[in-house]
């Protein structure tokens, strides 16, 4: 029994040290590349739905700890066997470590926003585990004594605890440092401030909480001090800018409505904020963009790519690199320290968060993340309108009922909004004032409501005179269309 216990322990402890070292490296460089979280994610993806359902049903909210515990258990069993076999044949140590490293690396690379580097922590961890076991293993068949084995075991276990604790500390310090670096930023006043809001705007013009739609499992935490933006590709002069470089440039401040392509008709993924940023056009003029380029590929810190038509940065609209939102630095989940914003484009085509690179290229040469998944390469916002009051299935009293909502066609602006009750003629709604054509327009209409069930519909006409289409389209692949309707029962 004892003959096998020691090699098994040697296998397990070597692996533990390797995992801890990999987690430490990941914590210090790219948290998403940590092998345990990566393997956990891959296991979740690979688990058949019935098993997943069974797990959630049986374990409830404990499913995640149980999953990680199971991974650790499998790992311990595997490494115990490797340790026992390696005591007889040393090459097993190398092979076992290789399997272990490749599995971790493959899991990390299978994550949606993976970059090549993500394989490194797992491979390094495997190399450490393999090496330790290789040095340790020959001692096992002819044990040099319990004392010496214990010393080595304690050393390796101690190393594991230290590396694990260090990984945790690094995460904590980095988290705190990012928050501090955000608090330390004093945003300069805009050289070109937003116009004061016209009087008569109703509450709700600015969104209390801007929607969040992205693929980041963990919100990237970027230290503003170390952040750089590289502009490269089809340019005359590559540049690398710090946040201080950006803040020294003249800033513009604008009210802009941003919306998500996956928003359904009447859906919630839209919001308005006051944005502060560096206009992109002068920056592009300085780096000298090649005349053949037609796409800006923005890359985020977690590897997301967003492809924006170059023309939309040069046609006079307020395309910018945002540093502030509603008077303060960007929230971490909204892209701190810098995000892109292109008025008139859906977020997936013009609003890369946590941006670290702008590459000038062509649409022929590069498909960005969502384009590879079948979404349209250009993402102009479709003209749309939404009824916010009354809410669906409301039961208002007969008499005067205010029907109100928003309509948007960023860039083109909204000329008219019309409301229809059941199949009666369309009636023009009152439009509230707006600061620019890049925001949504609030509208309202007094309805003389009669008892019974009624369906209210809305449609908008944009600044070019085009009426919003009644034709229903799903959000995929280029944005939802159709008139929003709400059914109510008047009492």
């Amino acid at each position, binding site marked *: 029994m*004892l003959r096998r*216990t020691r090699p098994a*322990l040697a296998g397990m402890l070597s692996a*533990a040290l390797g*995992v*801890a070292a990999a*987690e430490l490296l990941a914590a210090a460089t790219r948290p998403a590349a940590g092998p*345990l*979280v990566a393997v956990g994610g891959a296991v*979740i*993806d690979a688990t058949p*739905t019935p098993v*997943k*359902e069974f797990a*959630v*049903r049986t374990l409830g909210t404990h499913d*995640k700890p149980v999953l990680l*515990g199971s*991974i*650790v258990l499998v*790992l*311990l069993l595997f490494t115990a066997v490797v340790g026992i076999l390696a005591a007889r044949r040393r090459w097993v140590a190398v092979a076992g470590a290789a399997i272990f490293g490749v599995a971790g690396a493959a899991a990390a690379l299978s994550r*949606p926003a993976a970059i090549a580097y993500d394989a490194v922590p797992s491979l390094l961890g495997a190399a450490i585990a393999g090496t330790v076991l290789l040095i340790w293993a020959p001692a096992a068949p002819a044990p040099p004594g319990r004392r010496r084995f214990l010393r080595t*075991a304690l050393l390796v276990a101690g190393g*594991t605890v230290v590396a*694990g*604790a260090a*990984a*945790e500390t690094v995460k904590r310090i980095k988290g705190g440092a990012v928050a501090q670096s955000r608090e330390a930023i004093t945003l300069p006043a805009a050289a070109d401030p937003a116009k004061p809001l016209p009087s008569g705007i109703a509450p709700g013009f600015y969104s209390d909480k801007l*929607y*969040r*739609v*992205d*693929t*980041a*499992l*963990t*919100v990237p935490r970027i230290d503003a001090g170390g952040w750089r933006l590289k502009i490269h590709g089809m340019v005359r002069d590559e540049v690398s800018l710090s946040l201080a470089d950006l803040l020294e440039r003249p800033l513009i401040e604008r009210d802009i409505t941003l919306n*998500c*392509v*996956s928003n*359904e008709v*009447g*859906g919630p*993924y839209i919001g308005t904020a006051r944005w502060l940023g560096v206009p992109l056009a002068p920056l592009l003029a300085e780096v000298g963009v090649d005349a053949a380029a037609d796409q800006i590929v923005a890359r985020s810190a977690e590897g997301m790519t967003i492809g924006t038509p170059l023309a939309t940065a040069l046609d006079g609209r307020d395309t910018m690199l945002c540093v502030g939102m509603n008077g303060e630095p960007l929230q971490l989940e909204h892209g701190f320290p810098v995000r892109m914003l292109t008025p008139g484009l859906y977020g*997936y085509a013009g609003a890369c968060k946590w941006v670290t690179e702008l590459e000038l290229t062509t649409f022929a040469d590069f498909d960005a993340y969502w384009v590879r*998944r*079948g979404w349209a390469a250009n993402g102009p916002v479709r003209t749309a309108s939404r009824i916010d009051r009354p*809410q*669906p*299935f409301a*039961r208002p009293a007969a008499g005067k009922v205010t029907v109100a909502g928003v309509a948007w066609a960023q860039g083109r602006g909204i000329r008219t909004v019309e409301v229809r009750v059941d199949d009666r003629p369309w009636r023009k709604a009152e439009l509230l004032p707006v600061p620019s054509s890049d925001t949504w327009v609030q509208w309202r209409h007094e309805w003389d409501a009669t008892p*019974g069930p009624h369906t209210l519909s809305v449609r908008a006409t944009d600044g070019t005179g085009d009426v919003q289409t009644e034709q229903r389209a*799903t959000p*995929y692949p280029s944005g939802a269309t159709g008139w*929003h*309707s*709400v*059914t109510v*029962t008047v009492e």
Partner: protein
Amino acid sequence: MRATKFTAVAAAALFSVSLAACGDDSTSDDAGAAAAPAPMTSSAAPMMSSDAGTDTMTNFGSGCAAVPKDSSNPGSFEAMAQVPVATAASGNPVLSTLVTAVKKAGLVDSLNTAPAITVFAPANSAFEKIPSKDLNKVLADKKTLTSILTYHVVPGKLAPADLAGTHKTLEGDSIKVTGSGTDFKVGDASVVCGNVQTANATVYIIDSVLMPKS
């Protein structure tokens, strides 16, 4: 004895690392924890909002077997959890008659944009119990259809634990749910697949159409 101790140390060390690694993402956003996030599928939507509510995705009932298993299928539980209720139902072959009725009544947007609701969704087999002449008559009468459909909707998301009891429907009349655990009846209808999550509604699939008294 010592061996046990060392195993414990090794396990503790590994666990401390694993929990630390996992704690980091659960504090910020655990949207992807329970199910494959939308962007994993080939035609996935750019949406992964933190309020998708996938963490309470605990379905129960024999009828759940009829729901597609492949998460890239729009009718699967994973896909339905990401989109509002009428869109979710339209991806599900088990609910195609209901979806036709909802479209005829013009209730797609209302159901999709209601803030938080519970829908008792009759499966196709429930509609098959109604003589086709009667069914066609109801489908052609928007007012009656609307009152029948809204009789299947209750404000708020009802978890299984809150399901039993009397609930006022959006139609105005109340419905009575009896049972417990994973075994419920809504009036005379049985819940065949319960606690299906969509972005804005909790859905209980039932085997009979409910009829308001009025």
